[in-house]
């Protein structure tokens, strides 16, 4: 287990909790709409050559809610402020699901803030075909189960197996509420983002997607490819919305190659 710690930073008057671990070139990680699932094996692997910097999104329990953040674009602006104040820009980023939406907003606003941008099953653009799964009218169980193709994936059990504690239930409700505040309508996408991503057409970008993803359809990846024609795409076969745990080897290989490029 790599050495990781929880730190805090004061950003725009808010005490932001940031998980930091590993050593090497800094790598910003933006967690998904359900919250940071905890430091697991693939984090260890990636942390061998990178220092992972994982801000815990405002409103997700550990970091207080910020009332003026009302969209993923606002949140992207907040994280951009964090990177500048911590002298971390430009930085590599890996971002998951709604975290991908945030990273894309940041890149669209200021493409020089990132060196490499890896988006894993990203939300943020209206799919060219299909729909992003509406997670709001789902029970916790259904919502979480839909994120993987195979619920017997060991890391899935590590994260979500066993009895759910009241604190975990509250954290999950915090996550859903904040995701609703930012992404209720239009649902988890921003109609102007695809156009503004034109600013980032020269930013090295990797799109990772599992071909059994039940949350983000292939149409989202196609929409990103349309907005960022130079982006590289890696489709991981037989996995769902969490390729990083369902096929960590493939995911890490794609990440390492991309970040070394």
């Amino acid at each position: 287990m790599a050495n990781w710690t929880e730190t805090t930073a004061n950003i725009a008057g808010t005490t932001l909790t940031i998980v930091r671990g590993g050593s090497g070139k800094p790598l910003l990680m933006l967690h998904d709409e359900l919250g940071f699932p905890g430091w697991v094996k693939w984090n260890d692997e990636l942390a061998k050559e990178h220092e992972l910097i994982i801000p815990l999104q405002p409103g997700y329990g550990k970091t207080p809610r910020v009332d003026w953040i009302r969209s993923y674009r606002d949140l992207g602006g907040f994280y951009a402020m964090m990177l500048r104040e911590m002298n971390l820009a430009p930085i590599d980023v890996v971002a998951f699901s709604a975290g991908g939406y945030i990273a894309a907003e940041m890149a669209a606003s200021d493409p020089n803030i990132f060196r490499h941008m890896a988006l894993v099953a990203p939300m943020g653009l209206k799919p060219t075909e299909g729909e992003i799964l509406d997670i709001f009218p789902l029970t916790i169980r259904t919502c979480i189960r839909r994120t993987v193709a195979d619920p017997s994936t060991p890391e899935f059990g590590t994260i979500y197996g066993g009895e759910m504690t009241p604190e975990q239930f509250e954290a999950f409700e915090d996550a859903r509420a904040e995701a609703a505040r930012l992404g209720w309508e239009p649902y988890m996408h921003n109609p102007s983002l695809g156009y503004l991503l034109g600013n980032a057409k020269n930013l090295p970008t990797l799109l990772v997607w599992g071909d059994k993803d039940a949350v983000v359809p292939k149409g989202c990846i196609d929409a990103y490819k349309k907005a960022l024609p130079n982006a590289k795409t890696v489709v991981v076969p037989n996995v769902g919305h969490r390729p990083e745990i369902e096929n960590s080897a493939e995911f890490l290989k794609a990440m390492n190659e991309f970040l070394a490029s």
Partner: protein
Amino acid sequence: MKIGYFTERPYRWVPEDEVFKNHAFFAVSNKFFDREKAADDYNYYLDEACYAEEVGFDVVALNEHHGNPFCMGGVMNVEASILARLTKKVKIVLIGNPLPVLKHPLRMAEELAEIDLISRGRLVTGWVRGAGSEQFFNNANPAYNREYFNEAHDFIIKAWTKPGPWRYEGKHFHYRHVNPWALPYQKPHPPIWIPGVLSPETVKWCAEHRYPYIGLGTALGPSCDLWDLYADEAAKQGYQAGSENFGYLIPTFVAETEEKAQELGKGFVYGGGQNAFSRPEFTLPPGYNSKGAVKMLARQPGGSWLGVSPDKLRQAQTDEEEDMRDYNEVRRKLAGSFQKAQRNFQVICGTPKTVLPKIKMLLQILRPGIFIFFNVQGPVSNQDRMTSMRLLAEEVNPAVREYAQELDLPDPYEKEPGIVKAYSGARRLPVVDRTPLDSLNLSF
């Protein structure tokens, strides 16, 4: 005391098995909607409201739900407008308009002003947050529900009372030109009564605003607790709460014989009744509940994240459970729950003679100034529904009025809510009488 009449205006033709199959009324496909039957029913329910006035109820109460055969009142203000013209005496009580899901408070201020004008000041307007399912139906962001509610309420009161034109830039609502030409008939605005199902936040908010709070068939023990919470908050605001601050609505069905009342009263649990209003995922949308309410929910037995033990996790391959239930067995269980609801005083059913003592018991415990009878759900005929209304009006209500007099239960028209001053240092007076709860085994 004001005695009211209320019905959900159920769509009585939805096949019960479809409700069972869907595990709720909300989200049953509208392919089961029959236009001819609905046209008959919309007209009938308006006639029924007029009949309530004719037989002597003081109040006709309406509500609103969306996308749900449980209640056909999808746009309550339409019905209220018609009743404003058709009726002559009854108070038209809206319990209530779901402000957060309608998202247009200026339009709401205009609609209600027109209804109040047409009825020449018989409107009582209430507000609700809207059921969880309605946040989805109307695409109203549930995480801002309470903020929408508070802002819309404050805006409407201002639109009715501050001469225009003026400009409004709020957090969620924005208007360039606020100057509604039609203002309510009643000055400064119609009375406001707030219905609820025991949210402490709402109860405190009502006490702060001196609005009567109407418990919607809520369990007796917790209702007493929240009446006390209201009265404590009222004391902090400098007034003594009394029956003028409280109302209660109770599902009630009366027939000439006990057998018939029991048989038709089962309509209250048709399809699962109120408990089958919507499935849990629609009932609890994200951010809809306060942090305090979520904390309480989190401590209810909930099980594992994935609905399976860690050992069984590996075997769990699907998340869809096949519905293997025998619907006749479901119906038998519901009949059992109907009996339990009667024992708990959450449904009252019988002949005029057998229902009266139970109603008196409710009045003694909760001491409401507003008492509203909620007519039966399910496929009960027009004639049986009207018989229940007539029997209540002729054989029950006179005794209820007499008993309310005896207990001294003034309504908000007889005594303005909040008018009785609380003196600092003095103990506030009781607002409920819990003595019978123990003997009824209903203290929980």
